[in-house]
């Protein structure tokens, strides 16, 4: 059975999404259980796949039995195994978290749709990761995006629908750009298989069509993962969506789109092309620092906790792109660890914000006074994720910054060191503010929240947060685990297949 895992990891959430629709006609309560089970199975399959890929190298699956250049191929290698595991893990955590959250913040009548669409989103994301066919990538991208638009609008917040609409318009532009890029590549090579493209393209690197295609890919995926000047949709979409959705959007959707760009950069094109033929690195060297600084500074200015987290995502994406541009193994390792890091901590932080909002309806940071005592577990998790975001040693955030910084030095671009450190400081400013309000200030008098005692969120919401926070620590102390996978993946990307 394990040879079918690459397709099963996509099929499980798909089947379960359909099952939820089907079952939802009769029994609405089963939705959560099916979604949790599906994401768990996908996670288990991902772990197994990662183990297989680590042991035996590239796993290829021929869909419908057709040979690769003609048929659709699914590929699990170091990189996709690594990202697959991260994304399916986060998806599982968020699914577990959602039970109580969705009941209250989304509403019972939309529960079935929520979970089914959520699973479709996961299907799209996992599909994007495993597919080795570039058009198939586009199809999964659109499945994930459509589910994403729908999920943003599912909440009760009024502005969310407009946010979703804007997300849809810009997201579709991005997807169409990707489609155009694929079309250009197909025009000159006549193939859609990534590995095949890699073999055919080098002779055409200076062809304008191939260059244009690359530009379309960068802009298209850049729009999807909120690369700095293309980030405007992210703020309202991430801050107004229900927190569980913000969490999956920030932790998984952004990451998978970054992954897709990495795939295109290193598997369809080659390091030789992206670093020597096109001035991608030079562009990223300008964009990434601006993104890092602007994201952090704007985050400081926010009073709404979810908006703060949304802005900080823009800065964090900047780190990942910086690592991509540096063109050495250490920096790329840092980038890949940062994908894990950001998935864990931003996913965790949005869930934590969800807990707070679920219990208190508080969005304003200054009203979190005394929350450390009222919601100790939640705030402890917040602190850990926050420290990881700052990059304090023994959290996973430090590891990614460590490798990024070493990569920066290796590339001889020492002037990015102050950038990394300053942005850490800025991050410390906006997180410490919350931590101080929560722990060291006396709670505001109860009149602020009439007739309501603030207590901890339900256990099923706390467990995922706790696990995520724990992993921030585990991967910060036993960092050789993610480092091993990330370094192998980086080696593999830069070294060629």
């Amino acid at each position: 059975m394990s040879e079918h895992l690459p397709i099963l990891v996509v099929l499980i959430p798909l089947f379960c999404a359909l099952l939820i629709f089907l079952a939802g006609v009769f029994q609405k309560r089963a939705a959560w259980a099916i979604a949790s089970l599906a994401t768990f199975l996908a996670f288990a399959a991902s772990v197994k796949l990662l183990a297989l890929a680590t042991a035996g190298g590239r796993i290829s699956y021929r869909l419908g039995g057709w040979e690769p250049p003609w048929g659709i191929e699914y590929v699990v290698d170091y990189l996709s195994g690594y990202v697959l595991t991260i994304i399916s893990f986060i998806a599982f955590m968020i699914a577990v978290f959602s039970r109580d959250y969705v009941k209250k913040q989304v509403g019972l009548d939309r529960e079935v749709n929520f979970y089914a669409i959520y699973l479709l989103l996961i299907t799209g994301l996992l599909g994007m990761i495993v597919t080795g066919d570039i058009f198939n990538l586009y199809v999964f991208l659109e499945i994930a995006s459509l589910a994403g638009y729908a999920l943003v609008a599912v909440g009760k917040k009024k502005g969310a629908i407009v946010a979703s609409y804007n997300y849809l318009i810009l997201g579709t532009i991005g997807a169409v750009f990707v489609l155009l890029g694929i079309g250009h590549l197909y025009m000159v090579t006549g193939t859609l298989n990534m590995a095949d493209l890699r073999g055919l393209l080098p002779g055409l690197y200076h062809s304008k069509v191939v260059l244009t295609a690359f530009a379309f890919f960068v802009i298209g995926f850049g729009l999807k993962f909120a690369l700095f000047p293309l980030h405007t949709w992210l703020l309202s979409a991430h801050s107004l969506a229900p927190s569980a959705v913000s969490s999956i959007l920030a932790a998984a959707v952004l990451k998978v789109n970054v992954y897709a760009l990495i795939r295109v950069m290193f598997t369809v094109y080659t390091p030789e092309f992206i670093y020597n033929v096109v001035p991608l690195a030079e562009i990223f060297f300008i964009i990434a620092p601006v993104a890092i600084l602007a994201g952090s500074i704007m985050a400081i200015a926010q009073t709404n906790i979810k908006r703060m987290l949304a802005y900080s995502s823009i800065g964090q994406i900047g780190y990942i792109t910086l690592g991509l541009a540096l063109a050495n193994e250490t920096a790329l390792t840092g980038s890949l660890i940062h994908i894990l890091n950001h998935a864990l901590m931003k996913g965790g932080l949005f869930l934590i914000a969800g807990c707070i909002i679920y219990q208190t309806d508080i969005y304003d940071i200054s009203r979190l006074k005394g929350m450390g005592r009222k919601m100790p577990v939640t705030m402890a998790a917040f602190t850990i994720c926050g420290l990881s975001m700052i990059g304090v040693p023994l959290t996973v955030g430090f590891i990614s910054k460590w490798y990024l910084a070493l990569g920066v030095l290796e590339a001889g671009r020492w002037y990015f060191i102050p950038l990394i450190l300053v942005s850490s400081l800025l991050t410390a400013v906006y997180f410490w503010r919350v931590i101080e309000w929560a722990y060291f200030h006396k709670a505001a008098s109860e009149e602020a929240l009439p007739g309501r005692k603030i207590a901890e969120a339900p256990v099923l919401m706390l467990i995922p947060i706790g696990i995520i926070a724990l992993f921030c620590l585990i991967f910060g102390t036993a960092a050789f685990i993610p480092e091993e996978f990330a370094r192998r993946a980086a080696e593999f990307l830069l070294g060629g297949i």
Partner: protein
Amino acid sequence: MKELIIIRVVARLMIPFIQLFALYVIAHGELGPGGGFQGGVILGASFILHVLAFGLEESRRRLSEKVTDLLNPAGLLLFAGIGLICLIGGGMYLEYDRLPVTANPILASQLGIYGIEIGVGITVAAIMVTLFFEMAHRHDD
């Protein structure tokens, strides 16, 4: 309502033929131009014609929300399920010649594609109808 009488009579006459044609297109997809998408759209169009002629409520009585809600995923499940059954036959996903219903790979392949076209047809038709109902229905709540 009187001015609708011509429309209604014509619609009543046309709908069975449209549906028959839809089924033909779906079934023919394996060998010639046609298939689940096209057939499904035609099938869906027949229901939409019914709605236009007879009104939302009358159509809903014939084709309830529950049924379309069931048909939506059911078609897809049929598609994906056939693909999955191929695994049992020892093939890859969607490798129809390994469909464990017959030993003849060509027949198995044909059956597989039939099944899939039917699945696609059901879903497309159901989605069309659902979309139309959702858009036409005025949510006054």
